[in-house]
C-alpha cells in the first residue's frame, strides 16, 4: 500500500481518496465522510515527516471504517435507525491501534443494519452497489468496506465477520478479506452482533497489506477478555505440504464457475508441488442450522440495550415505559433485526433452551472437532466462500432462507473460531469476481496469509 513519505505526502493520499469517494458517490459506500478531519490529520503527519520525526507504519494511509466501529468522529450508526444521532465518546481499540500507526479514516462505510445480512440491503440508508455491476449487491454485511477497497478509493477498510460478513463481500468484489482467529483483534468498541462469533478483520488489495494490518491491530486487550495473548506463534510456521478440499461442498448447490475456479487453483498448487487431499466433513452440514440458532440468541441479547432510554433514537410515541420500548424498537430496527430478535428470544425461552440453544451448542462442538480432525490431515483447506457470485439487488430480499443459504460455507469458521482468508480467484463469464477462502487452524493467521501468495 502507499504510505506517506517525503515524496508522497499524506495530504496527497488523503485528498486522492476523498476525491475518489466523491466520484463513486452513487455506489452508496459511505454513511459519513470526514474531509476536514482527514485532511487535518494528514497535515499533522506531513509536518512530522518534514521535521524528520518518526511516523507510524501506516503513516498517512487513507482507510474506510465500517460504521459499526466506535469513534468520536461522526455518528456511529451501524446503519441502523435506532442508533441515529449517537456520537460515541469511545474509540474502539482496533481504531486506536490503526491510528496510532498513522492510518487516516476518511469515512464510515455502509453495512446491513447491525451487520445482519449478506447484501447490505438491510441498511437503513439503502444498499451499497457492487463494484463490478451496479445492478448487483455488494454482499454483506461489510458491503461498503469491500466496495471502497475494490474501487480503489482507500488502501484498506475495516470489517466485522460474524458469519461471513468480510469474506463474502470480499469475494463479491474481488478483494482480499480476512476473518482472523476468534480473539485476535479486540472487539472493544465495536457494535456487537454475536459475541462468540464476532471477529474484526480487514479488506485489502494484497496479502502483504493484510499481514501488515494484522501485525498492527492484533493482540491482547485488557478491555476484551476474549482476546488472545499472541495470535501467532512463529514455531507454528511449519512448511505447508497438503491442502484439503471439502467434498461435501463439491456439488450442484455451488455455482459451476466457482467450482471450476477452485479446481484451477488446485491445479496451480499441484504444479507447485503441493498435495491436494479430498476430505469429507459431514459435521459441517449442521453449521448453518447451529449458526442461525446461536447467533440470533446472542443478537437478541446484545440488542437489548437499544431501548431508547439512554442514547440513540427514541420513538415519539412513548407515552409510558412499555410504549417507549415497543415503539422505539419497532420503528428503530429493520425487519431483519426483528426477525433475529424473535428467533433468538424463542430459542432461549424457557422450555426451548435445551431443544434449540443447547443442541446447537453441541453441534458447534462437533464442528470444532471436525475441523481439528481435518487439520491433522492437511495444513489448510481451500473452499468456496459462497455458493454463488454477487446476486441481483432485490433478488433474495424477500426470501430470508435463500439469503441465509448464502452463508452456508462461511459460518462454520465462525462457529469453530478459525481463520479464513477470502482471495480473488478470477472472473466469471459475466465479468463478476469469483472468490475462494483459504482456511487454517486456530492461530495460523500469519502463515495462512503468507501461504495465500502461493495461489497467485
Amino acid at each position, binding site marked *: 500500500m502507499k504510505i506517506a513519505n517525503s515524496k508522497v505526502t499524506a495530504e496527497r493520499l488523503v485528498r486522492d481518496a476523498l476525491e475518489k469517494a466523491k466520484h463513486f458517490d452513487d455506489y452508496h459506500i459511505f454513511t459519513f465522510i470526514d474531509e476536514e478531519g482527514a485532511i487535518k490529520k494528514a497535515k499533522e503527519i506531513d509536518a512530522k515527516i518534514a521535521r524528520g520525526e518518526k511516523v507510524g507504519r501506516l503513516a498517512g494511509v487513507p482507510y474506510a471504517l465500517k460504521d459499526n466501529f466506535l469513534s468520536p468522529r461522526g455518528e456511529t450508526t451501524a446503519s441502523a435507525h435506532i442508533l441515529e444521532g449517537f456520537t460515541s*465518546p469511545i474509540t474502539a481499540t482496533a481504531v486506536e491501534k490503526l491510528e496510532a500507526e498513522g492510518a487516516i479514516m476518511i469515512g464510515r462505510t455502509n453495512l446491513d443494519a447491525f451487520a445482519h445480512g449478506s447484501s447490505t440491503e438491510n441498511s437503513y440508508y439503502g444498499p451499497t452497489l457492487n463494484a463490478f455491476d451496479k445492478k448487483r449487491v455488494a454482499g454483506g454485511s461489510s458491503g461498503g468496506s469491500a466496495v471502497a477497497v475494490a474501487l480503489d478509493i482507500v488502501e484498506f477498510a475495516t470489517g466485522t465477520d460474524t458469519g461471513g460478513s468480510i469474506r463474502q463481500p470480499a469475494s463479491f468484489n474481488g478483494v482480499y478479506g480476512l476473518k482472523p482467529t476468534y480473539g485476535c483483534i479486540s*472487539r472493544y468498541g465495536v457494535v456487537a452482533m454475536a459475541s462468540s462469533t464476532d471477529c474484526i478483520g480487514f479488506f485489502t488489495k494484497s496479502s502483504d497489506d493484510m499481514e501488515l494490518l494484522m501485525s498492527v491491530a492484533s493482540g491482547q486487550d485488557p478491555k476484551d477478555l476474549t482476546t488472545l495473548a499472541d495470535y501467532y506463534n512463529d514455531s507454528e510456521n511449519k512448511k505447508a505440504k497438503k491442502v484439503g478440499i471439502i467434498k461435501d461442498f463439491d456439488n450442484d448447490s455451488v455455482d459451476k464457475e466457482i467450482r471450476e475456479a477452485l479446481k484451477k487453483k488446485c491445479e496451480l498448487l499441484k504444479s507447485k508441488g503441493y498435495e491436494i487431499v479430498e476430505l469429507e466433513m459431514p459435521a459441517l452440514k449442521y453449521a448453518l442450522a447451529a449458526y442461525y440458532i446461536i447467533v440470533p440468541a446472542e443478537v437478541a*441479547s446484545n440488542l437489548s440495550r437499544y431501548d431508547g432510554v439512554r442514547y440513540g433514537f427514541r420513538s415519539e410515541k412513548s407515552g409510558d415505559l412499555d410504549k417507549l420500548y415497543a415503539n422505539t424498537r419497532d420503528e428503530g430496527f429493520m425487519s431483519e433485526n426483528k426477525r433475529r430478535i424473535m428467533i433468538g428470544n424463542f430459542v432461549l425461552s424457557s422450555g426451548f433452551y435445551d431443544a434449540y440453544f443447547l443442541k446447537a451448542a453441541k453441534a458447534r462442538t462437533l464442528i470444532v472437532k471436525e475441523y481439528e480432525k481435518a487439520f491433522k490431515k492437511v495444513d489448510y483447506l481451500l473452499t468456496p466462500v459462497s455458493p454463488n457470485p454477487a446476486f441481483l439487488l432485490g433478488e433474495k430480499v424477500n426470501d430470508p432462507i435463500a439469503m441465509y443459504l448464502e452463508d452456508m460455507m462461511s459460518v462454520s469458521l465462525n462457529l469453530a473460531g478459525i481463520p479464513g482468508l477470502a482471495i480473488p480467484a478470477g472472473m466469471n463469464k459475466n465479468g463478476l469476481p469469483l472468490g475462494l477462502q483459504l482456511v487454517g487452524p486456530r492461530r495460523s493467521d500469519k502463515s495462512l496469509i503468507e501461504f495465500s501468495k502461493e495461489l497467485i
Partner: protein
Amino acid sequence: MKYIPTIGIECHVQLSTKTKLFSEVDNDARGKEPNACVSPVDFALPGMLPRLNGEAIRLAVLAGRAMNCTINPSSRFDRKHYFYPDSPKGYQITQFYHPIIGEGYVELPSGTKIRVEHAHLEGDAGKLTHFSSYSLVDLNRVDTPLIEIVSMPDIHSAKDAHDYCKELWRLMRFAGVSYGDLYNGNMRFDVNISIAPEGSDKLGTRAEVKNLNSFRSVERAVEYEITRQTKILESGEKVVQETRGWNDATGKTTGQRSKEEAKDYRYMPEPDLPPINLSTEFIETESKKLPSMPVDYRKKFSKIIAEDTLEVLLDYPELMKKLEEIDEKHVKLMSNLFASVLLAEEKSAEYLNDLPSANDLNELSEMNEKKELSSTAMKEVFLRLFDPQMKGRGAKNIAKELGLIQENDLEALEKIVDIVLAKPETQKAQADFNAGEEKVIGFLVGQVMKESHGKANPSAVQEILRKKLA
C-alpha cells in the same frame, strides 16, 4: 389443624470492593451525585465489554468459606434478560448454571444448621425514583458486585428466619466482604414461605416476599404470611404462587405478580466473559485468610462471657477481634465494659472505627484489679481510651491526668479518716453507729470520699472506719 411453615431465603450481599464487578469505576457511591459512578460499560454503550474484578472473586471465596461452603474451581457467568431502565444492558450478568460457591451451611446461635444450596456472583441493578409524571434513573449501583446466597428450605419459624438473616449478616461482616449496611441496602432478603399440614410430606404452595431489608421485617413478614396462609387453608381455599411486597408501615404483604405473569429471563451463557478457573492453591490460600467467625468466638468465650453479652458483642466484629487480642484474664471485664459502657455511649459508632490498643485495655484492667480506680473512674478512663483526643496516652496516664487514681495508701487514708472523724458534723453519725445503727457507715464512707476528692478506695475506707470506731 396444625401447619408447619417451610421457609427458604435468598439473600443479596453487596461486596465492598473498590471498583465495580465489570468496570473500573468507584463502587462506593455513598455521598455522590446520581450517575457519578458509571462507566461506559455500566452505561451499556454499544460495543462495551465487561471486565472482571478479581477482588470480587477473592471476596466471594471468603464469603463462601464463612458459610462453610465448597468453592467451585470452575464457574461462569450467564445473562438474565429483562427490560427495565435499571438494567442498561437489558440483562443482568449473573451465574445461573455454574455458581462460584457450592453447598454449605450456616449455624445459628441456637445451634440449628441451615444449609446453603449455593451462592453466586452477579451485578446489581440501578435505582429508579418515580414522580407523578416521570421517573429518574440512577445507575450508580449498576454492577456493584453482589453475591446471592440461596438457602435450602430448612427454616421453620419466623424466629429462625430472623436469626438466619442476622447470622448471615454477621458472617459477611466478620469475613470482611461487605459493609453490611442494611439501611443503605447492602443486604436484601427475599423470603419464600409455604405452610403444610403437620405430618404432610408435601410442601405447600409458596409465596415469595421480596426486597426485605431488615431482620425485623423478615421476621414480621414471615409471621404475617404464616397467619395469612393459615387463614386461606382453613377457609378451604388455595394459596396462590406469587411474588408479594412487604409494607413495613402496615405490617402486611400484598400480591404483586402471580406465577402466570412470571418473567421468562431467557438465560444464556455470557459469551464476553471466559470461565473463572480457580486453582486449588488459590482457594486454599484465600480460605486461610478467613478470620475468626462467630462460631469460633462462641467456642472460645462461652465460659468467660455471659451468653446474652456475647450475642450482643457478636454484632461487632471489631470488638470481638479486640477481645481476641487482649489477655484472656481481662476478657470478662472488657466484654462487660464493651457491652454496657461503650455501646451505650452516644459516640460509640464513631469510636468503633478506631479502637484503642489491646495494651491500653490490658493496662486498664490491671489497674482495676489493683483497685487503683473506683468503678466510676474506671468507666470514665475506659471511655477516654476511645476519645480521639486522648487516645494513645495509655490508661494510667489518662487516669493520672484526670486525677482519678484511687488512694490505696492505708496510712494516707487513715489520716483522712481521722480528719473526718474529728469533724463536728460526723459526731452524731459516730454515736449512732456505736449504738448499733449499722447503715450510717455509708454516710461516713461518703464523707471520707468527699474529703479525698473521690480518690479513696471505698472498701479500704470502710475497713479503717470500722477499726477506728470499734
